[in-house]
């Protein structure tokens, strides 16, 4: 492909005048057009050949050959045929002797190549093709490579005289073509076997030497002909030597390869042979065993190789094997064959055919012996089996009770046994002369002959027939003949085997029996009562349709069962004893009423009439049962029995009223209790009017319904009704009654009992009412007896504690609930007993482990006699309330602190300014003094006096502020109450606020004179309240437009001091007023107020016995703090 490309490219380059591609370098010979064409064609030939298109390859090669031959001719003839410029005039003539002509070496190369190619393509020359191709290829490749290398080194190896030189593209092409040819040759014949290789190497090296020599000569300008000659000769000799060396190498390689192959073949045969193969050392130890052998013996190859063959030879065969083996190894016999037994690893014995032979080396020394072992166990056992079976057959044949005959295909008897002789009455000798048809009854002969023929023809494998034989004495004998064919090894019928059984007796009996059976079966099946035939093993042999219908089983099912299977368990024993009597004691008839279980599990009563069926010897063989279904009757009997029993029971019980009501007379007979229940004097018969008059009119219809239902349904029932007593009270009674039937099955009356259930009713009612009430309550209510066991458990208790009533009842309440008291439990119990109640808090633990604080109320319950018998506990869960209380308490303290601090924080700004200003004054005064002294040396005394006085005053102002601040930041809630003057409180508070008010231009209006009032208080707390009110007022107006003011008033009103703070704001909207004072309620913007100030103030005021109120009377916002005035004594 590359060569073709080079050729085509160069051709194109010639036409497009692109010298670089043609010459590669300007001082190099160009690749002439002819060369290029040839190269292209050669490449094409190679491609075609590689693709298997030999004809096209040949054509290309032919063309190349033509061109090359012509050029060669030109050179040798020194002529010019003019076709050099056929493809155009060359315009590059560097190192070119004849314009456009390829170099002589090129022509030679192409000549060689085309010849090789033609040889490859030709069928006639195919034998030598690879050789030619190989040799030429080597030459071409070398020439190409050498010239390419030299050209690149600027040598011109193959320029003969002044003739055209080889171009770079050409030499590349030769090298490639050469390698292509070599590759093809190699494909034809691998290197090791290629005879051409030595010659190829020889030529290749030779060509190389020539090229190098030429190059040297050219380089050295032929100055040293001797040296060059020596080089040339040496090179050529080297080429020859190399060729020879390669030849030798090939030969040895071929020899060793043959050996290797033979060995591999042997190994393959050895390993994969289906026969066991072993190699045994001369010392009678294994050398090698194959896979089949190890498989045959069950040992692994490694195990075998460590053993001697005798070790697994059967002991019986060991001696012989050893003897033979020794003789073989001694060379006394060349080989031996032996059938012997081997013992496998698992102990099995196998038969093997052993062929042992000796293997010697070329010098005739014994190398080892080879054993070929074939497993013939199967063959051996087949032989033995045959022998066995023959013997067995003979024994069976002779001793068989059946008549046996072997008949040849020609129907001659071949063998008969003693039984047949006995049956037929003929002797064996007589029979051997006869044909079976001879003693066959004439009527059956035709049929028999036909069957025998079919048998021998192989149409049927065997046949059985009932036929008649004529005995020697002329008697007719019925026989069953079973006939089959015996075949020889080739499968041809050898004998017919006939088995003859005498059935004469059976045949005659059968006829009589069949008739009797038919009759019996008809009777049996048609019988309306159940009939069964039972074997002595209780197995049902036959059952008729009536019986099957009775039990619900199919006949097939019944016949798989025994009589006991469907007998009611309790009745099995009587059944067994009946059967034993029947069969064992020969009692011919038996009767039994017993219960059967139907297929669906129902019980039915049956009356069995059993009889025994005897065989001809008078021995019982079957039991026959006639079974009548008497269930209905039995049921009636049972019911009657039950009623009687109940009645007798009832009458025995004295506390129960017994009554019997006769329908016909409509009169009743009562026992004593009955009259008692109805609060009537005992009398004879009781009429309906008597008892109906007693029964509560509302209940009468129910009683009537009850009676009619009992009569109608004939099933007993119960009714409850009230009885009005003469004293007007009500008694509850319950009656039970059932119908009495006469002999015709008609209801003749009702019999029953009655009972006074008033107490039960009342108790039930009261309990129900109580429970309902208690259940209604959410409180956990339970009743416990004096031992503490729970006897009642309300729904509330269930919901609270988690145990249901069923779970709680019977448990001790304190255990169940882990009751914890905060007073001794004994005190509680004592309180309950002495004062009939207790109230307090207890802690109960619920089912899921939560502890609940319960407000518990205990009350003692007494019985009718007034003796305490139980304690009712009503418990209310106050856990959440308690926790909330605790939380609120804790929270309140925290919030109070927080609110106070936040108020402080808000104040801090003002306070800092308030302190800073006096500080600035002091600073300024001091600076001034210092400066004056510095400037003038001294200060005027008046100035010093004034300045120091001002400094002192200002410092005092700061001290006052700091004092109030320190005071207000205390909590104060633990302080003692102390009488304090309102004026003082206001003074302190305003000290802190004034600056802030001034800063925002909020006017602070104070009373001109503060009334001299004293309150008993915790001063700090009250100051906090006032400060808070001022702060709120300030916050409310600070952001307002226009005039802003806050006014403080003090007054005394009915024993109280009232401090009111009013601001210029518009008041609080009505809808918010109610919420003022709620913790956390604030109208201030987020971050400005905690919403606690007012609520805390309220609390403080209330603790002081006063309060903080919003005054909605004035048009502005006004809050008033009211505090009780201190009594005079205290105030003093």
């Amino acid at each position, binding site marked *: 492909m590359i060569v073709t490309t080079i050729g085509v490219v160069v051709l194109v380059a010639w036409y497009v005048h692109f010298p670089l591609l043609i010459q590669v370098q300007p001082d190099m010979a160009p690749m002439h057009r002819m060369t290029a064409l040839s190269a292209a064609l050669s490449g094409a030939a190679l491609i075609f050949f590689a693709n298997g298109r030999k004809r096209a390859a040949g054509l290309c090669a032919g063309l190349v050959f033509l061109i090359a031959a012509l050029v060669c001719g030109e050179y040798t003839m020194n002529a010019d045929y003019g076709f050099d410029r056929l493809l155009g005039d060359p315009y590059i003539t560097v190192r070119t002797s004849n314009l456009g002509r390829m170099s002589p070496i090129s022509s030679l190369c192409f000549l060689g190549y085309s010849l090789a190619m033609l040889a490859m393509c030709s069928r006639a020359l195919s034998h030598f093709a690879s050789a030619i191709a190989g040799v030429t290829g080597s030459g071409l490749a070398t020439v190409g490579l050498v010239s390419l290398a030299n050209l690149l080194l600027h040598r011109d190896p193959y320029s003969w005289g002044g003739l055209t030189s080889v171009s770079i593209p050409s030499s590349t092409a030769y090298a490639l073509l050469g390698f292509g040819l070599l590759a093809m040759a190699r494909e034809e014949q691998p290197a090791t076997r290629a005879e051409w290789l030595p010659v190829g190497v020889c030529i290749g090296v030779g060509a190389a030497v020539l090229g190098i020599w030429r190059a040297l000569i050219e380089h050295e300008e032929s100055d040293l002909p001797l040296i060059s000659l020596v080089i040339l000769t040496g090179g050529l000799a080297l080429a020859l030597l190399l060729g020879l060396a390669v030849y030798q190498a090939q030969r040895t390689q071929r020899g060793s390869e043959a050996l290797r192959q033979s060995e591999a073949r042997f190994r393959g045969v050895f390993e994969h042979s289906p026969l066991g193969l072993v190699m045994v050392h001369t010392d009678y130890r294994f050398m090698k065993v194959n896979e089949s052998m190890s498989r045959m013996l069950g040992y692994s190859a490694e195990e075998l190789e460590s053993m001697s063959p005798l070790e697994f030879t059967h002991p019986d065969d060991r001696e012989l094997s050893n003897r033979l083996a020794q003789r073989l190894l001694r060379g006394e016999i060349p080989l031996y064959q032996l059938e012997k037994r081997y013992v496998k690893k698992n102990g099995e014995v196998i038969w093997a055919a052993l062929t042992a032979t000796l293997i010697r080396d070329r010098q005739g020394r014994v190398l080892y012996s080879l054993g070929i072992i074939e497993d013939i166990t199967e063959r051996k056992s087949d032989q033995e089996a045959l022998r066995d079976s023959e013997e067995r057959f003979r024994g069976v044949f002779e001793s068989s009770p059946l008549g046996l005959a072997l008949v040849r295909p020609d129907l001659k008897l071949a063998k008969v046994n003693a039984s047949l002789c006995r049956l037929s009455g003929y002797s064996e000798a007589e029979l051997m002369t006869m044909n079976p048809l001879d003693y066959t009854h004439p009527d059956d002969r035709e049929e028999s002959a036909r069957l025998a023929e079919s048998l021998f023809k192989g149409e049927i494998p065997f046949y059985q027939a009932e036929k008649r034989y004529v005995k020697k004495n002329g008697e007719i004998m019925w026989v069953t003949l079973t006939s089959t064919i015996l075949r020889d090894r080739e499968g041809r019928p050898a004998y017919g085997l006939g088995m003859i059984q005498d059935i004469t007796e059976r045949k005659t009996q059968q006829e009589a029996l069949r008739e009797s059976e038919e009759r019996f079966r008809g009777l049996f099946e048609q019988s309306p009562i159940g009939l069964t035939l039972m074997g002595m093993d209780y197995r049902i042999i036959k059952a008729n349709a009536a019986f099957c219908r009775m039990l619900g089983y199919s006949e097939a099912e019944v016949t798989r069962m025994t009589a006991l299977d469907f007998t009611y368990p309790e009745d099995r024993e009587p059944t067994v004893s009946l059967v034993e009597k029947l069969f064992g004691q020969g009692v011919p008839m038996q009767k039994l009423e017993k219960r059967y279980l139907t297929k669906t599990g129902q019980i039915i009563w049956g009356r069995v009439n059993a009889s025994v069926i005897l065989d001809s010897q008078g021995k019982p063989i079957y039991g026959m049962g006639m079974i009548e279904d008497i269930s209905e009757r039995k049921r009636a009997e049972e019911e009657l029995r039950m009623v009687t029993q109940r009645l007798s029971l009832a009458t025995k019980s004295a506390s129960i009223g017994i009554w019997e009501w006769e329908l016909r007379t409509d009169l009743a007979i009562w026992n004593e209790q009955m009259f008692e229940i109805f609060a009537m004097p005992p009398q004879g018969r009781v009429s309906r009017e008597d008892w109906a008059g007693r029964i509560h009119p509302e209940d009468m219809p129910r009683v009537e319904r009850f009676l009619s239902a009992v009569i109608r349904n004939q099933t007993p029932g119960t009714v409850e009704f009230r009885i009005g007593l003469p004293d007007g009270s009500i008694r509850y009674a319950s009656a039970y009654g059932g119908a009495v039937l006469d002999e015709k099955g008609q209801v003749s009356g009702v019999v029953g009992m009655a009972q006074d259930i008033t107490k039960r009713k009342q108790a039930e009612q009261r309990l129900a009412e109580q429970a309902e009430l208690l259940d209604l309550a959410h409180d956990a209510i339970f009743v416990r007896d004096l031992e503490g066991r729970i006897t009642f458990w309300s729904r509330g208790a269930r919901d609270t504690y988690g145990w249901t009533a069923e779970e709680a009842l019977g448990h001790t309440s304190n255990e169940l609930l882990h009751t914890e008291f905060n007073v001794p439990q004994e005190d509680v119990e004592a309180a309950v007993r002495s004062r009939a109640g207790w109230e307090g808090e207890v802690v109960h633990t619920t089912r899921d482990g939560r502890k609940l604080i319960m407000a518990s109320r205990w009350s003692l319950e007494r019985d009718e006699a007034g003796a305490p018998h139980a304690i009712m506990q009503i418990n209310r869960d106050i856990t959440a309330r308690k926790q909330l209380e605790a939380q609120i308490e804790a929270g309140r303290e925290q919030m109070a602190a927080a609110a106070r601090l936040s108020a402080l924080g808000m104040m801090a700004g003002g306070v*800092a*300014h308030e302190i800073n*200003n006096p*500080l*600035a004054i002091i*600073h*300024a005064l001091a*600076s001034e003094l210092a*400066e004056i002294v510095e400037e003038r040396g001294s200060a005027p005394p008046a100035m010093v006096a004034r300045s120091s006085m001002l400094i002192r005053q200002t410092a005092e102002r700061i001290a006052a502020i700091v004092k109030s601040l320190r005071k207000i930041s205390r909590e104060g809630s633990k302080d003692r109450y102390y009488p304090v003057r309102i004026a003082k409180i206001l003074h302190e508070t305003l000290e802190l606020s004034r600056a802030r008010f001034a*800063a925002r231009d909020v006017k602070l209006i104070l009373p001109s004179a503060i009334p001299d009032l004293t309150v008993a208080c915790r001063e700090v707390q009250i100051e906090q309240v006032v400060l808070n009110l001022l702060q709120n007022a300030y916050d409310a107006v600070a952001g307002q437009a226009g005039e802003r003011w806050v006014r403080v008033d003090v007054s005394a009103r009915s024993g109280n001091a009232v401090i009111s703070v009013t601001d210029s704001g518009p008041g609080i909207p009505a809808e918010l007023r109610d919420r003022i004072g709620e913790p956390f309620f604030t109208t201030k913007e987020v971050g400005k107020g905690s919403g606690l100030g007012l609520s805390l103030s309220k609390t403080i005021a209330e603790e002081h016995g006063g309060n903080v109120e919003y005054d909605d009377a004035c048009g502005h916002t006004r809050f008033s703090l009211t505090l009780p005035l201190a009594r005079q004594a205290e105030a003093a």
Partner: protein
Amino acid sequence: MRLEEAFVLLVEDEPLLCEVMSAWLGRVAGKAFCAQNGREALRVLKGNRIDIVVSDVRMPVMDGIALLETINRSTPGHPPVILVTGYSDLTLREAYDRGAEALLEKPIDREALLLVMRRCLMQPGELWQQPRRRGVESKLQTRFASLASALEAEKLAFGRKGFCIERSGGLREGPVDFSMDFKDEGRVFAGQGEVRWTAPEERQAGIEIINVDEPCRAWLVDLLRRGAPAACIPASTASASGTLRSAA
């Protein structure tokens, strides 16, 4: 103008303080005026030549901040205002942004007040020729394509006495040597300043200019004259005035 020739207005609601301070101001300055609150101060301003206003912040009727804003808004060629406060009513950053020349704390350090007042009276060109401090550790070096782009990108904003600059950190309050390279204009604006405030989380810092290198001093003076920013030091780089931007 020298301080000795300047007329100073002291605004202070505390009469005693007012008295002492005005006596002192009367000695150190040309003349001292006194007002109890902002509104009174405005009246004084209307009727007199006032070169410097020294005002308390918290005052009834009209506080110092309101006064400052009114002065800035209504008085053409308004006098510089120095605020004095006893509490952190406003931050330094806010004060400079609102146009105050300085914010001093009570009690007033007289030396500090004198220094501030003297600086207030200087013309910018003269102000920025003051000797540079030696051995200043803090350095601020930035490069901008141009002043206009820096202003536009809100990396920098100028006030009358300083600038606000976007700064990722590393600046502490105190003296700083700064150098801004405006590449396109080929100008390096270098000098010494005083970091007045830093807001690291906003990546802002406010720097008062103390000294400007000779080559660009005139440029800065001219820039600020044309831009006429209201703030002394802008509170943020985003608050550069439009006039200044167009001036740049």
